[in-house]
C-alpha cells in the first residue's frame, strides 16, 4: 500500500505529464511524443490508485473487467470511426466524461466514507459543495453533448429550436440550481441531490437546443471546457492533484477554443449561446431571392481554367467532408502539381464542424501540412492567384461580410476568394449556407458555378486535366 504522500507525488507527476501532452501539440513533429506522455500520465494515475487502495481481492477483478469492457469499446470506436465523423465522436466522448463525473459524484454522495469525506448525511461541507458543483456541471455536459451529438449525426434537426420564454426559463433553472446546492449543503438531503441532478440534465438539454448546426464548433469547444470544469470539481472532492490539474487544463483549453471559434465568426460568446442564429434571417433571404444570372460550367471548363493557371488556392468546407471528397481532391491536386501549378489550401477557422476539422481531413488524404494555411496566412495571396477552387465552403467566402453592414455575418473574417482571377465554386445548388444568406460570390462575373456532388465533380475534373 502506497502512503498518501507518495501517491500524491505520483498524481502530481501524472498531472505534469498531461501538461506536456498538450505542450507537444504545438507542432506536428512533437505531437506524437506528447500523446505518449499523456498515455504515460494516465497509466501512472491508474496504477497509483490501485496501489494506494491496495485491495486486490474480488473487487479488483471486477474493476479490471469493467475497465477492459470500456477499453475494448473505446479502442474499437477509435479504429472504426471515419475522420469525417470526428465532431460526433468528440461530442459523444464529452457526454461520457460528463456522465462519469455524475456517477462518481453519486458514488461519493452515497458512500462518503470510501473517499474520506465524512458519513452519509454528515458529509464535510466543502466536499459537498465541490461534489454538487462537479455533479451539476457533469450533468449539463452530459445532456448538452448528447444534443450536440444528435444534431451532428443529423438524427435531430440542425436548425435552432426556439420557443417563447426560453431565456427566462433557462435563467430560472440556473438560479434554482444555485439555490438547490445551497439547500443541499444545509440539509444534506439526498432528495435534493437527485433533484439537482435532474434539473442539471434538463438545463444542459435546454441550453444546446437553440444553437444551430453551423455554431457547433463553438458548442463542442464549450462542452469540452465544461467537461474539464466537471472533472476539476470532482478533483477537489477527491483531493486529487492529477484531476485538479487536468480539469483546469481541459477547462481553459475548451474556453480558448470557443473564443477562437467565436472570433472566427465575429460573434460574441453570449450571442452564440443565446442561440437562434439563422432562424430569423431565413425569411429575409427568401424575399430578395430574385433570379440573378449565374454562370455555370462543367468539369471540362473547370479543367481548362486550372490547366492554364499558374497558382490555385483550394478552399475546403464542411461540404467536402459530407461528400467524402478529400481523397478525390488530393488526386486532382497531384495532377495539377505534375503540370507545375502551385497549389495551396486555405482553411477558415470555422470551416467544418469542429476546430481544426478540415486540417485532419486533409491530413488523412495525405496533403502535406505545409501546404495548408490559416486565414491570416493566406488571405493576401488570393489577389495573386489565378483560380480559387471552393469546395463545400460557402458562408466563409461571402464578400457580403465585408460590404453589407445589414448582413448577419457582417464583420466576420472571410477568405478574399473574390480577388482571384477566377473562382470555381463546387456546390449542389444555389441554396444559401448555414447562416441562411445568399452568397454574392455566386453572381460575380469571374465565378463559374459547378453544380454537382463535390466528389464526382473533382473526379471528373481530374479526368479532364
Amino acid at each position, binding site marked *: 500500500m502506497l502512503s498518501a504522500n507518495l501517491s500524491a507525488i505520483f498524481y502530481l507527476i501524472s498531472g505534469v505529464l498531461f501538461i506536456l501532452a498538450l505542450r507537444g501539440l504545438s507542432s506536428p513533429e512533437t505531437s*506524437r511524443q506528447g*500523446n505518449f506522455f499523456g498515455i504515460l500520465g494516465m497509466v501512472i494515475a491508474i496504477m497509483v490508485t490501485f496501489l494506494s487502495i491496495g485491495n486486490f481481492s474480488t473487487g479488483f477483478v471486477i474493476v479490471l473487467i469493467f475497465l477492459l469492457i470500456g477499453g475494448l469499446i473505446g479502442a474499437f470506436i477509435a479504429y472504426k470511426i471515419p475522420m469525417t465523423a470526428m465532431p460526433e465522436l468528440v461530442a459523444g466522448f*464529452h457526454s*461520457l466524461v460528463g456522465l462519469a463525473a455524475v456517477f*462518481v459524484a453519486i458514488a461519493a454522495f452515497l458512500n462518503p466514507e*470510501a473517499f474520506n469525506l465524512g458519513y452519509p448525511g454528515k458529509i464535510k461541507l466543502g466536499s459537498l459543495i465541490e461534489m454538487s458543483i462537479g455533479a451539476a456541471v457533469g450533468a449539463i455536459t452530459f445532456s448538452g453533448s448528447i444534443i450536440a451529438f444528435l444534431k451532428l449525426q443529423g438524427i435531430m434537426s440542425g436548425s435552432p429550436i426556439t420557443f417563447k420564454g426560453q431565456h427566462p426559463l433557462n435563467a430560472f433553472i440556473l438560479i434554482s440550481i444555485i439555490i438547490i446546492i445551497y439547500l443541499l449543503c444545509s440539509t444534506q438531503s439526498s432528495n435534493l441531490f437527485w433533484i439537482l441532478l435532474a434539473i442539471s440534465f434538463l438545463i444542459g438539454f435546454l441550453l444546446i437546443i437553440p444553437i444551430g448546426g453551423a455554431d457547433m464548433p463553438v458548442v463542442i469547444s464549450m462542452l469540452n471546457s465544461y467537461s474539464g470544469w466537471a472533472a476539476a470539481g470532482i478533483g477537489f472532492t477527491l483531493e486529487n492533484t492529477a484531476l485538479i490539474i487536468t480539469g483546469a487544463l481541459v477547462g481553459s483549453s475548451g474556453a480558448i477554443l470557443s473564443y477562437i471559434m467565436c472570433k472566427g465568426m465575429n460573434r460574441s460568446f453570449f450571442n452564440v449561446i443565446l442561440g437562434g442564429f439563422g432562424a430569423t434571417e431565413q425569411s429575409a433571404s427568401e424575399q430578395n431571392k430574385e433570379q440573378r444570372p449565374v454562370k455555370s460550367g462543367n468539369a471540362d471548363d473547370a479543367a481548362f481554367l486550372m490547366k492554364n493557371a499558374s497558382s490555385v488556392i483550394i478552399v475546403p468546407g464542411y461540404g467536402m467532408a459530407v461528400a467524402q471528397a478529400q481523397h478525390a481532391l488530393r488526386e486532382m491536386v497531384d495532377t495539377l502539381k505534375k503540370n507545375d501549378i502551385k497549389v495551396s489550401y486555405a482553411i477558415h477557422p470555422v470551416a467544418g464542424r469542429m*476546430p481544426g476539422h478540415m486540417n485532419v481531413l486533409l491530413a488523412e488524404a495525405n496533403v502535406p501540412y505545409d501546404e495548408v494555411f490559416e486565414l491570416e496566412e493566406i488571405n493576401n495571396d488570393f489577389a495573386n492567384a489565378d483560380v480559387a477552387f471552393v469546395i463545400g465552403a460557402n458562408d466563409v467566402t461571402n464578400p457580403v461580410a465585408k460590404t453589407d453592414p445589414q448582413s448577419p455575418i457582417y464583420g466576420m473574417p472571410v477568405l478574399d476568394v473574390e480577388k482571384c482571377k477566377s473562382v470555381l465554386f463546387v456546390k449542389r445548388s444555389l441554396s444559401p449556407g448555414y447562416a441562411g444568406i445568399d452568397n454574392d460570390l455566386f453572381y460575380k462575373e469571374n465565378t463559374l458555378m459547378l453544380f454537382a456532388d463535390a466528389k464526382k465533380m473533382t473526379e471528373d475534373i481530374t479526368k479532364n486535366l
Partner: protein
Amino acid sequence: MEIDPFIFRLSIFILSIFIGYYVVWSVTPSLHTPLMSVTNAISSVIIVGAIIAGLAGNSNTIFNTSSIFGFLAISLAAVNIFGGFLVTQRMLAMYKKKKKDK
C-alpha cells in the same frame, strides 16, 4: 493558524488554469482537433475516483449502489481513455506520413 489544505488545492487549480491558457495558445491551429480528443482522454483521469468508489465495498458487499455507480463510471471513463488516446494517435500518425514524403 494553519492553512486549510483546500487553499493549496485551489492554488494548484488557479495556476493550472494559467498553464493551460499559455500551453493551449501555443497549440498550432491545424492540431485543434487532436487537441480536443486528447483533452477528452486526459479528463477521463476521473476514472481515479471511479476506481476508489468501485473498490470501496468489502468482500461481503462488492456490489452496493455506490460501487455499482463506480463500476459504471470506470467503463465510461475507460471508453474515453482508450478511445481518446487511440484516435488522437491515429490522427497524429497522418500528420507524420507527410513528413516522410518530403
